[in-house]
């Protein structure tokens, strides 16, 4: 059985937190550059130009792309043939977040209790989703989530009779309501099926799929493409000031569900859709 020490996980999390807050992944940068070339609204193009310049400054001067460096969401896929040695794995991940946010001069945006609201001052704890998978590797995905767009996310418990039209309406409703608050251009992560919580986690994980990569399921791919086209006809545009570039991608994940239900979660992310994956 392969052994992986928790120090290795801590180091990886630290490095990934710093990198992901300063450099947008290639798929997201490509979306922005394409949008700049194709946006017809003058204001929209001006804003996309500012966002391009912002990316250059962030990368070259090590200033976070956005001051909201998020609450850290972690997808940790642990191979069943791996033996984790050292400390508690959850502590190891949080220690990586703590170090990354201190050394990277990233904002500490987490409060210890939702009502009492005292800042933990180290951006911990992270929200960690564990999964046990075949193999002897550990895959770590770090996706710090800003809350301007998180606050505009929605979960709909539809009826089976609502069908795919109900799903489409749910997605469009969430995006329309989000409007300028979610810092468009957005990425829209959608979960369809499962249970209440499974659906929301699928929507979150959908945001970590590279923009432009589609579902392997035929009708889901078609739905992703149709939704992206329809969203980009809403004229919300960059910063919500009009234009064609309202979303860069709609990524949809699905799962079997109950005979009585059709859950749909719409997790909205701004154009600073940070995600980075490393395999150990």
């Amino acid at each position, binding site marked *: 059985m392969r052994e992986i020490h928790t120090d290795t996980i801590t180091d990886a999390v630290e490095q990934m937190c710093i990198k992901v807050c300063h450099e947008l992944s290639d798929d997201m940068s490509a979306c922005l550059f394409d949008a700049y070339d194709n946006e017809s609204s003058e204001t929209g193009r001006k804003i996309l130009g*500012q966002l391009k310049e912002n990316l250059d*400054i962030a990368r070259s*001067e090590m200033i976070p792309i956005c*001051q909201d*460096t998020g609450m850290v969401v972690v997808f940790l896929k642990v191979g069943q043939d791996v033996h984790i040695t050292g400390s508690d794995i959850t502590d190891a991940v949080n220690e990586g977040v703590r170090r990354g946010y201190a050394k990277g001069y990233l904002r500490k945006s987490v409060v210890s209790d939702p009502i009492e609201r005292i800042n933990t001052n180290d951006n911990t704890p992270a929200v960690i989703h564990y999964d046990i998978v075949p193999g002897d590797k550990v895959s770590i995905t770090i996706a710090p989530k800003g809350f301007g767009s998180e606050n505009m996310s929605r979960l709909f418990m539809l009826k089976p009779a609502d069908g795919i039209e109900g799903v489409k309406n749910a997605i469009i409703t969430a995006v329309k309501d989000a409007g*300028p608050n979610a810092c468009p251009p957005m990425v829209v992560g959608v979960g369809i099926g499962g249970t209440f919580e499974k659906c929301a986690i699928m929507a979150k994980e959908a945001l970590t799929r590279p923009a432009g990569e589609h579902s392997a399921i035929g009708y889901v791919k078609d739905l992703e493409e149709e939704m992206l086209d329809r969203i980009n006809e809403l004229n919300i545009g960059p*910063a919500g000031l009009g234009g064609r570039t309202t979303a860069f991608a709609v990524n949809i994940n699905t799962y079997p569900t109950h005979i009585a239900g059709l859950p749909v979660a719409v997790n909205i992310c*701004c154009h600073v859709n940070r995600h980075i994956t490393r395999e150990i």
Partner: protein
Amino acid sequence: MDKHITVPFDRSVSEGLSAGDYVYLTGTVYVARDAAHKRMIEALDRGEDLPFDIKDQTIYYMGPSPARPGSIIGSAGPTTASRMDKYAPRLMDLGMTGMIGKGKRTQEVRDAMIRSGAVYFAAVGGAGALLSKCITGSKVIAYDDLGTEAVRKLEINDFPVIVVMDCRGGCLYN
């Protein structure tokens, strides 16, 4: 059209601004977001003064990332203004003439803007690195224990914003 404005400003200046104007702000603004607003309103409720005289001032809804050594400030873009909607009308009634943020506002806020002659500017969300280059001074003046949510006094130079809501009810968001 592009306009260059000095902050602070009184209502004679905000009355000359219209939704859609591109504005470059130079001067002093105050930074406050959720937790600082809650404390400021609680201070008013107790009959105490605000940490600064709000007459003719502009509040920037923002919580920066930490400054690296040798830098003035970290990333410093706007946060969603609607979370301050509960507090903003009272501050406008005390003379606040400007707000910088992003996103929609409530009707109560828009009514208060018309009543007090205030203007709401949007800065581009998610452009915090770029906007930090227009900040020439930053000092925490109150509620230091709130960390990124402390009240700051900022010096800004040609800080780019767009008037999204003016003091006559004009609004750029559709």
